[in-house]
């Protein structure tokens, strides 16, 4: 196994480092917007960007690695011929300030898009990316990554992981591309001292103690391996679901998509992939109108079962990363934590 190096980056050196990195790649980082929300945004001007490393970005990296709409193929219909060509190649991209939950979600997407078939469009983007995470010292509202085993700090999977020590960042490399940064821009960093390691460990323990939500994810997964979801629970949740798809869109691990053609002219067009939501009633409807899944509560439970039952059976862990975004967004209160809370409560009665 590669011995992944660790370094310390004094905070004064962060912008100079990002300036260097942004020269050869597109830089994406959380930015505070004028409306008061925080979104991952392309940084065009490193020096004048308003980075927001405190609040939870409302979106994950999903809009970048699996864009809400993207071109899968271009087609031409001309002189009786119908031909397809691949989309443009992805640009090298560096993501900075990514939370542990969102990196875990990317690792899950890697699985989905590699088995049973390897999705070339996704991996073109993925292979052109370097992800620099920021461990969470202050878990935010509705965060429960500790219950899903995806935070607050990570052990692997990142290019680089930064932990805020106050005046500096403790930086660990987790992949070759991260090691390359530490080597190429070594003069921005200093070696790790015993004090740095102690401080990092202290912060980790404190962060774990700051979670306000305790969600029994593992317990729920185990219940679902053996038992059906109680009908009363499904009724309760479906009566509050408005079929808006918001949970699936903000979810960093909801990867279901649709594919449609966009006609640009009589002779050419684009084949577009766009996000879809298994909670919507049209998701399974076939030509002619027949729908093998016609009850909303079946559609609603499918999303929870996929994450907590089927993926748990396949990968021994759920595909919920505890980011809490569905909790933030659902105005009906039909988020995954409600489902887990009610399921585990019904089991213990």
């Amino acid at each position: 196994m590669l011995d992944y190096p660790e370094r310390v980056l004094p905070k004064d050196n962060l912008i100079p480092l990002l300036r260097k990195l942004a020269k050869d790649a597109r830089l994406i980082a959380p930015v505070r917007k004028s409306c008061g929300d925080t979104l991952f945004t392309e940084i065009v001007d490193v020096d004048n960007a308003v980075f927001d490393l405190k609040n939870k970005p409302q979106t994950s990296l999903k809009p970048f690695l699996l864009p809400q709409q993207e071109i899968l193929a271009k087609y031409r219909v001309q002189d009786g011929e119908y031909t397809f060509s691949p989309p443009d190649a992805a640009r090298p991209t560096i993501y900075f300030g990514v939370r542990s939950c969102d990196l875990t979600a990317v690792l899950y997407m890697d699985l989905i898009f590699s088995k049973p078939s390897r999705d070339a469009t996704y991996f073109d983007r993925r292979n052109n990316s370097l992800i620099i995470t920021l461990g969470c010292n202050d878990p935010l509202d509705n965060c429960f990554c500790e219950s899903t085993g995806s935070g607050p700090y990570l052990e692997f999977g990142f290019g680089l992981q930064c932990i805020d020590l106050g005046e500096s960042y403790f930086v660990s490399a987790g992949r070759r591309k991260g090691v390359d940064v530490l080597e190429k821009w070594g003069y921005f960093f200093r070696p790790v001292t015993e004090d740095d390691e102690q401080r990092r460990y202290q912060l980790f323990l404190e962060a774990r103690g700051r979670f306000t939500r305790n969600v029994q994810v593992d317990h729920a997964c185990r219940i679902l391996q053996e038992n059906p979801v109680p009908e009363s629970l499904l009724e309760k949740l479906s009566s509050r679901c408005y079929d808006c798809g918001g949970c699936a869109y903000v979810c960093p691990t909801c990867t279901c998509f649709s594919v449609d053609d966009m006609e640009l002219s009589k002779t050419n067009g684009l084949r577009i992939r766009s996000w879809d939501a298994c909670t919507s009633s049209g998701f399974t409807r076939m030509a002619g109108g027949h729908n093998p899944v016609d009850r909303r509560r079946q559609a609603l439970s499918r999303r929870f079962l996929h994450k907590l039952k089927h993926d748990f059976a396949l990968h021994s862990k759920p595909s919920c990363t505890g980011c809490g975004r569905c909790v933030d967004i659902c105005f009906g209160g039909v988020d995954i934590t409600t489902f887990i809370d009610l399921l585990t409560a019904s089991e213990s009665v």
Partner: protein
Amino acid sequence: MKASFLPRPAVIREIIQQNAYIRTFRLELIDKTRPFTFLPGQFVMLSVPHLGEAAISLSSSPTALPLFDLSIRRAGSLTEAVHTMATGDQVGIRGPFGRAFPVEHFAGRDLLVVAGGIGLAPLKGVIDYCLYHQELGDDPVSGMTLLYGSRTPRDIAFQETLSSWQARGVDCRLTVDRAGDEWQGAVGLVTELLDNCTVTENTTALICGPPIMIRFVIAKLVSRGCGDKNIITTLERHMKCGMGICGHCHLDGKLVCVDGPVFTLAQLKKMDVMELG
């Protein structure tokens, strides 16, 4: 497997009108430098200019390659457009995808093929495949019986094929839901035809049709003593990729496009599917 969203152009060589709303499109890929082969029961994603893709079962036997058939019922905007296409026009093909019927296990078996309407399309390839090998004396099946249900006599598709199969030794039995006096054959559900069929330990039943038909045929076969592993059906679901990524055909932990579309009853029983009621 490397997933590709780039279809290969294919040209329509022949169009066979099967009934008022089903046509068979006989296709040939233009670029032959890359291999293309399949087994009965597999499907392709068919592209039609400006309308996107739809999953369509292959309705011919691979023994007829380089030509292959897609038998298409007019059901939505894409299939509507296919029906306006002419010989020489081009479509796009991705695939083949999915698990095929286990034809390698059919030697010596009594095949009982039960189909309703367009449901004969994915099963047609199996019968053609088995007949081809039977006539070569190569791993022949013991016998083949086809029970085929249609709504009315005018709805009966694949009529020329049925005559040819009958002549080549397939016991073809037809029924219609309703008919006028001119119809000499059976009237009633396809399950009623099953009453006059022999079902033994050597029977392998292949079923495709509307979900309600599949459900009642399975129930009847089970009551006649047919084993769960010898009852095989193929499911139809909405699909967008065909390669196990898009999620649309997710079925209680399985994906119809890669784990199916062909399933034995033994496999279906482990899932919550509407075809079992």
